[in-house]
């Protein structure tokens, strides 16, 4: 059980304008800005939930994760995770926590991955039998057998990320924080990582909090998302509801031959471009391409088109998750 209420955290950063004059000036009198990284963060996450924590760059995602990991001490507010305050009972708290920072390694650079794992076993005091069992399982599921004897610095990004995830799970944590786990990975590695996380959540009931810019990660893994912007929770809800609310209009692309006048369209449909141009609505003979925006069912528009022209191809696209997020960011002005 994770509960945050009214968490605030601000940083003081020194500020100066460019140029040599200002540089000299700041030597004598430095100006500071207070940046409110977390203005007011409250949410609850139950055991075994899998939650996507999203927001634009600089919104406060990582700061929240760092507060929950016991790395940052907030200025005010409460955070209780499984009955403990992370920064006060840090050691007890982190022994049940796994963290993957996508941009940083948890492994030792110059030694084989297996040696790093052994060191982690000692640091977390993992029982040798449990360690063996976890390692075997992780090796199999993440396909690590070829990698264990390789020094970390020789691994590719995708290989390393699989090892990082294994490293975060050696001690069977109850809660897993994934901070951009698929950043820079190829399609195959991304899917492998997603599948693994989904299995982990299903089989072990591990609570997973995922921060990412990759909306496919969110779509594949989480039902609930929390949107943060400028240090505040803007939205907290089911992904399906959000999809419904922010989906907007679908797009229909038609290719046809022959002449056509597309001024009178069924209700809910509007012409966006014809042959790549806006404002054009009628064309003479030849092959053409028209893009429409539609609300609801496309059938009326399709029957109209097929009656008037020789349709050669047709495609209906629903709003991608990326567009939904853009719509959300726009609506909340972040």
């Amino acid at each position, binding site marked *: 059980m994770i509960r945050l209420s009214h968490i605030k955290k601000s*940083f003081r950063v020194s500020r100066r304008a460019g140029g040599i004059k200002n540089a000299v000036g700041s030597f004598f009198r430095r100006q500071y800005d207070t940046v409110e990284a977390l203005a007011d963060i409250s949410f609850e996450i139950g055991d075994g939930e899998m939650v996507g924590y999203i927001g634009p760059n600089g919104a406060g995602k*990582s700061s929240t994760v*760092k507060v929950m*990991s*016991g*790395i*940052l*001490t907030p200025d005010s507010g409460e955070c209780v995770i499984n009955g403990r305050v992370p*920064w006060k009972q*840090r*050691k*007890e708290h*982190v*022994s049940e*926590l796994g*963290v993957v*920072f996508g*941009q*940083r390694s*948890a492994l*030792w*650079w*110059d*030694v084989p991955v297996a*040696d790093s794992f*052994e*060191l982690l076993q*000692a*640091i*977390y*005091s*993992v*029982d040798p039998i449990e360690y063996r069992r976890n390692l075997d399982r992780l090796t199999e599921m993440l396909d690590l057998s070829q990698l264990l004897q390789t020094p970390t610095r020789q691994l590719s990004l995708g290989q390393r990320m699989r090892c990082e995830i294994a490293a975060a799970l050696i001690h069977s944590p109850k809660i897993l924080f994934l901070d951009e786990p698929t950043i820079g990975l190829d399609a195959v590695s991304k899917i492998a990582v997603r599948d693994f996380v989904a299995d982990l959540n299903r089989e072990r009931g591990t609570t997973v909090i995922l921060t990412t810019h990759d909306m496919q990660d969110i779509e594949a893994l989480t039902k609930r998302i929390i949107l943060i912007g400028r240090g505040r929770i803007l939205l907290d809800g089911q992904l399906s509801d959000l999809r419904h609310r922010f989906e907007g209009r679908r797009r229909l692309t038609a290719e046809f031959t022959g002449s056509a006048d597309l001024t009178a369209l069924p209700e809910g449909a509007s012409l966006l471009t014809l042959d790549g141009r806006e404002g054009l609505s009628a064309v003479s003979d030849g092959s053409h391409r028209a893009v429409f925006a539609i609300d609801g069912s496309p059938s009326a528009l399709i029957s109209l088109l097929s009656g008037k022209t020789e349709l050669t191809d047709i495609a209906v696209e629903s709003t991608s998750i990326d567009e939904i997020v853009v719509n959300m960011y726009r609506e909340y002005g972040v």
Partner: protein
Amino acid sequence: MKKISNLTVYRKFLSIHLRSLMQYKASFIMTLLGQFSGAFSAFLTIYFLLRRFGTVEGYTYQEVLLCFASIYMAFSLAETFARGLDRFPAVIGNGEFDRILVRPRNEIFQVIASKTELTRLGRLLQAIVTFCYAIPASGIDFTPDKILCLVLMVVCGALVFVGVFVIFAFICFFTLEGLEFMNILTDGVREHGSYPFDIYGKEIMTVMTFVVPYTLVQVYPLHYLIGRTDSLLNLFAPLLALVFLIPCALLWKLGVRHYKSTGS
């Protein structure tokens, strides 16, 4: 679940460092030699100075050498095993400290264990060689209490240096700039502390007692060692110096609370 002791964890860290080291053997040996020759030149300075003048403020050549070797040994032990604290700006800068905080072990322990700079043993080697000469040549009768005195000087001396490293790391939580002044209290003390501090006069003695208690691991026990005094206070002065570690630990805790982490 049985808790694995810090000592076991430390041994595993050490074995990792050794294995990494084996990948860069030539570099290791060169640095080791460099460290040794640096220390050797410091030794030569003392040799020429005292051959010319005989004594410094009443200390003989052999007595100064005992002082030199104990400070060098203390410093090199601290630097070898607590190098992680000495390079703390990098630990903060590359986000390694975030990683340390998400692991269930004491933070200072992890910082110290994260890096063992075995090349610094070059200085230790010089200290050992000097002891091998100075101990028999000093004419001191090494009874158990004198041996204890020397051991306390070295071990507590190393811990005081570690304390100074912790203060250095504490400052890093607030700023990573202009930290060179801290070198006065580390490298500066190593060099100037090769001579007993009382030769520099009262002001230096006061600073080196009450700001950082270096005199308690150096000149006071040295007086007991070379037989200038019988006071047990001098013998156990190094233990008193360990009180210094308490404010160091408190400052550290304060620093961790103010830790800002880096971006991303």
